[in-house]
C-alpha cells in the first residue's frame, strides 16, 4: 500500500490502466499454460512463439499492425454508437456491404487515376455502410424499434446478399468460389513493404481514429453522444433532436464500418471474397466494450487482438498448438479483462482495512 501511495498522481494516471490490463492477461496466460501442458506442449515455448511472432522484428510488428487494422475500424464503429447507447450490432453487415461496394467500384471504374480511384472506392464503401446503417437508425428514430434486434437480423441479410452478388451477377469467370474479379491496380491500397501485408488501410484506420477521437472528445456531436448515451430523456428535454442525432450517429458508425470493409478489400483481398471476415464486427464489439467506448481504449484493444491474432498463428505454425486452444486463451483474456481487478481489489483492500481499524478502536 505504502509504495502505491508514493507513486505520484500524474504517474498513477497512466500506470493504472496498464497495470490493470496486464493482470488479466497474465491470469489468462497462467490458466492457458495448464491447458497447453495438458495437450503436451510447452507453455513457455508456445508463449514465446506468440510474442516473438507478434512483436519481434519489423515484419512481425507490421503484420501485427496489419491484423489490427480492421479491428481498429470495427471497434470504433461500435464504440461510436455504444457511446450514445445505441446498440449497433450490425457492424459485421455494414462491413460486408462496404466491402462489396468498394470492390465493385474497384473493378468497374476503369481509367480512374490511382489515388482518386482509391478515394472513390473508400467513399463508396463508407456510403454503403452508412446507407445500410440508416435502416435500423430510421426504424429506431421514428418508430422506436429496437436497433439491437434489427442490426442483428440485418447482418444475416447482408452476408447472404453479398454472397449472392459474388456468386451470381458478379462472379469472376472461372472462379470456383464466390469471389468477384480483381479490382484494378489503381484501386489498390499499396503495401508499405514487401513481405508484410500491412498496407494503406492502416493509414486509413489511424486517420479515422484521429477523427473519431476528435469528434468524441472535442466536438459538439461528441458531447451530444455522451449526453444521449447517459440519459436520453434529459437530452431530448434540453433540446437535442434525438431522432436526428440517432440517424447521424448511426450513419457515422456505418461509415466507419463500411470503411473497415472497404479497407480490407482494397488493401488485403483486392477483390470481394464472400464471407471474408472472421467476425471482425463481433471482435470490434468486444474491443469497443473493453475500451469503454473510448477511442484510445479501442486502439489499445485492437492492438491486443492484433497481437493475439498474429501471435496466435505463429504459435500454431511454430509450436503446433491447436487453433482451438488459441481461441480458449483469447477468450480467457477477454474474460479476465472484463473485470476491473485493480479497482475492485483496491476497494476490497480498503474495505478490509477499514473494518480492521474499526475493530481496533472498539
Amino acid at each position, binding site marked *: 500500500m505504502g509504495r502505491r501511495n508514493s507513486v505520484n498522481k500524474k504517474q498513477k494516471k497512466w500506470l493504472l490502466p496498464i497495470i490493470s490490463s496486464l493482470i488479466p492477461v497474465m491470469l489468462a496466460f497462467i490458466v492457458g499454460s495448464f491447458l497447453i501442458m495438458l495437450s503436451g506442449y510447452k507453455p513457455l515455448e508456445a508463449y514465446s512463439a506468440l510474442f516473438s511472432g507478434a512483436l519481434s522484428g519489423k515484419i512481425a510488428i507490421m503484420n501485427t499492425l496489419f491484423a489490427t487494422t480492421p479491428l481498429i475500424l470495427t471497434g470504433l464503429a461500435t464504440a461510436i454508437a455504444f457511446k450514445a447507447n445505441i446498440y449497433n450490432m450490425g457492424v459485421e453487415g455494414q462491413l460486408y456491404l462496404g466491402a462489396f461496394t468498394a470492390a465493385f467500384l474497384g473493378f468497374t471504374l476503369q481509367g480512374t487515376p490511382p489515388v482518386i480511384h482509391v478515394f472513390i472506392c473508400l467513399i463508396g464503401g463508407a456510403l454503403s455502410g452508412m446507407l445500410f446503417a440508416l435502416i435500423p437508425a430510421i426504424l429506431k428514430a421514428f418508430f422506436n424499434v429496437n436497433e439491437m434486434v434489427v442490426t442483428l437480423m440485418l447482418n444475416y441479410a447482408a452476408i447472404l446478399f453479398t454472397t449472392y452478388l459474388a456468386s451470381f451477377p458478379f462472379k469472376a469467370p472461372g472462379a470456383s468460389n464466390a469471389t468477384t474479379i480483381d479490382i484494378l491496380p489503381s484501386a489498390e491500397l499499396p503495401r508499405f513493404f514487401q513481405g508484410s501485408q500491412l498496407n494503406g488501410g492502416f493509414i486509413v484506420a489511424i486517420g479515422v481514429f484521429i477523427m473519431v477521437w476528435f469528434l468524441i472528445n472535442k466536438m459538439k456531436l461528441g458531447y451530444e453522444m455522451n*449526453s444521449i448515451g*447517459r440519459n436520453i*430523456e*434529459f437530452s431530448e*428535454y434540453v*433540446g437535442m*433532436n434525438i431522432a436526428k442525432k440517432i440517424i447521424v450517429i448511426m450513419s457515422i458508425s456505418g461509415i466507419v464500418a463500411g470503411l473497415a470493409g472497404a479497407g480490407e478489400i482494397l488493401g488485403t483481398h483486392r477483390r470481394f471474397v464472400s464471407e471474408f471476415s472472421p467476425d471482425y464486427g463481433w471482435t470490434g464489439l468486444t474491443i469497443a466494450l473493453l475500451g469503454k467506448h473510448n477511442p484510445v481504449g479501442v486502439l489499445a484493444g485492437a492492438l491486443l487482438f492484433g497481437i493475439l491474432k498474429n501471435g496466435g498463428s505463429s504459435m500454431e505454425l511454430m509450436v503446433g498448438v491447436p487453433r482451438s486452444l488459441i481461441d480458449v486463451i483469447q477468450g480467457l483474456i477477454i474474460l479476465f479483462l472484463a473485470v476491473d481487478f485493480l479497482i475492485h481489489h483496491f476497494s476490497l483492500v480498503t474495505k478490509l482495512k*477499514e473494518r480492521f481499524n*474499526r475493530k481496533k*478502536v472498539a
Partner: protein
Amino acid sequence: MNNIEVVNLTKKFGDFVAINGINLEVKKGEIHAICGENGAGKSTLMNMLFGLIEPSSGQIFINGEEVHFQSPKEAIHQGIGMVHQHFKLVPSLTVYENILLGEEIVKGFKIQQRKEYEEVQKTIDHYNFDLNGKDKIQDISVGAQQRVEIIKMLHRNVDILILDEPSAVLTPQETDELLDNLIALRNSGKTIIIITHKLDEVKKCADRITVIRHGKFIGTVNNKDVNQQEIAKMMVGRDVKLDLQKEDSERGNVVLLAKNINAYSDSGSQVLYDVSMNVHEGEIVGIAGVEGNGQSFLMNALSGMLKLESGEIIYQDNSINDKSPQALRDMKIGLVPEDRYLHGLNSTMSIRDNLIAGYHWRKQFCDFGVLQQKEIAHHAKDLIERFDIRNCDNTSLEVGSLSGGNAQKIVIAREMSMNPNLLILSQPTRGVDIGSIEFIHQQIIEFRRKKKAVIVISSELSEVMTLSDRIYVMYKGRVIGERLTKQTSKEEIGVLMAGITDGEAKFGE
C-alpha cells in the same frame, strides 16, 4: 436511554469529507429533527444509520449496542425504517406491490395479490393518504410517490423511523396529516428522525433539533428553546430573511397565451381540459394545485414534450403547438423541469457539461462544431460562484454526487444564465434549503424586474403566494380559478385547490 448514538462518525467520498466527526444522540420515543443546508451531509448521515453506505470511521450504537451495518437488510432487522429523499420505488409495479416489497403475502408459491391490495389500502386509509393501491408508480405524481414511500415504512411497523425530507412534495393538508401521524407514532413509543427544510414543520413536531453544517455537528437544541429565525441562523451561519420583499412591477405585452388546450396522456386518458392562460412581460404567474391535477402535463405541453389534441399555444405571436423542446429553446424559453434527475440533469455527466446542456451549440461554447472547453470551464466556475452552488470545486465531477439542493441550483443556474424571455419553472425549490430558497426566489424576482415573463408551477402554496403576481389554480386537469395575488388569500386558494368554487371566477381579463 439513547435509542441511537453516533460517536465521532466520519464519511469520506474520495478526498471529500461529507461527514466530519459527528456526534448525535437520539432518545427513545422522541422526534428528532435534523436541519442543515443542502449538502450539509444530512442524507449521508442517515444513509449510514440505515446501512446504505458504510462509515469511513466512527461508531454507531443502536440501543446501546454497536452495529456495523453492511446493508439495509441488517438495519431493517434492527427495526429501522427509512423514507428516502430519492425514491426507491419500482415504476412498473403497483402501489401495494411497492409497499409490501420484501414482505409479500403468499400462499404456497403464489402471491395473494388481492389480499395484499386490501391490506395495504387499509393502511393507506388509516393514515388518510390520497392513494390508490392499484395504481402503478409510473402513472402517479411525484407527490403520490412520496406518500407511497411513507406508507411503505409506516406499514412495516418499525421502531425507529427515519424520514428524509418526507414533505417536500406533499400538499399542506397531507403534511399536516403526516405530522399528526408522526406525533401519534412518537406517543406510542417510536423513535423518529426527520430531515426537513421547512422550519414550520420542525417547530410543529420536533422534540429536539440537531443542526449540521458542512458535515460538522453544530449543536442539538430543544425545540421549545428556539424560534425559526434562530434555527435558520444555526444552519446557514448568518441571518436569513424568511419572508421575501418584492416591489410592484409594471406588466407589459402578452408573452405566452394558451387557448383552450386539451391533451391526452400516453395511456389515452384526457389530462388537460380546455386550459387557457397567459403571461405578460414583467409578470410572474403561479400555477397552484394539488400535485397530480394536471400541472405536470401542462408543463409538458408548454415545454413541447406533450402533443396537444386541440387548442393553441401562442408565444410572442407565433403558434408553438408543434414545436420541439429544441425549437422552444431557440425561441428563448427556459425550462426548469419538475423531475430534476430525469429531465433537469444528466446525473452521470459532469457538472460542467450539465451547465451548458441545451446551450452547448451556442457560439460562445461551440465554434464550427468544436466545443470551447476553456470557455465552458470558465462558464461553470462563473455560475457556481454566482449561484452559490456548494461542494463543486471540481467541475468535472458527476452532478449526481451533489446534494439535492445543489443539484437544483445547477438547473436553475443553467436556465437563468441563458437569459430567456420566458422562464417556466416547475417546483423550483423542491428540496432546497432555506438559504437557497431565498436566493432562488430573489433570482426569479430579479428576472421579473428585467421585464421577463415567468411561470412558476408549484405545489408549495406559500411559494406560489410569495412569488406570483397572478395565480391560476388547477383542479383535475382544468383551470378552475384565476386570482390576483394581492386580492386573494392563502385560504381562498387552498379552497380552490380542493376543487371548491362558488360560481364564476372573481377576476377576469
